């Protein structure tokens, strides 16, 4: 089991109803974790429309995770 810290922004924050959470998971990568969370929380965006950042940096999917990592799932951006 790994302990992971997740921050949610924008549409994911609203759909999750929280800005962040700490959870324990058996998932080995961020992609698998997102797909679990998507079922639980009803996130509308499929994983292939997201990017992921781990410990403050973008990482390519499937993005292996380690105990203590800080994850942010990044919905399609829309600055400007």
């Amino acid at each position, binding site marked *: 089991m790994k302990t992971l810290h997740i*921050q949610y*922004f*924008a*549409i994911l*924050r*609203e759909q999750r109803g929280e800005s962040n959470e700490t959870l324990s998971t058996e998932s080995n990568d961020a992609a698998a974790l997102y797909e679990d969370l998507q079922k639980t929380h009803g996130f*509308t*965006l*499929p994983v292939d*429309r997201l990017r992921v*950042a781990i410990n*403050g*940096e*973008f990482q390519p999917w499937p993005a292996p995770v380690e105990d203590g990592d800080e994850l*942010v799932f*990044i*919905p*399609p*951006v*829309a*600055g*400007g």
Partner: protein
Amino acid sequence: MAFRISAEPIQPQSQADVLQHPAAGACATFEGWVRDHNEGQAVASLEYEAYAQLAETEGNRIMAEATEKFELLAAAAVHRVGHLQIGEMAVWVGVAAAHRGPAFDACRFIIDELKARVPIWKKEHYVAGASAWINCATKGDFAADTAPPENS
């Protein structure tokens, strides 16, 4: 050559001051403003949210790329977060170069890359009452929290 996220209204003049350089003959700026419509819908206001830490990292990476690619003498950019009304400034980009060609090209490169790469999100609030996170649709054009009426 800095990009930053600001929760306070952007002051373009104080931004522009950092661009001064004796070898600069050209200064190009871009401002993104909250406009009263999008894709045919009347917009009442916009909310911007950022993953500030990574936004600043990625934004500064873009500034460095532009500086190298276009031989800039100075560059700065700032993106607002929070709830903005029509006419408010959402983003400001300014660059200085010896000549105008690179200044225009760099300014455009920066705003294009900021929009494409930096983790900032925009929620439109429509005059008709609905709202939507832009680019987050899973069907149609919008990921509407509540479906916007067709004639708004």
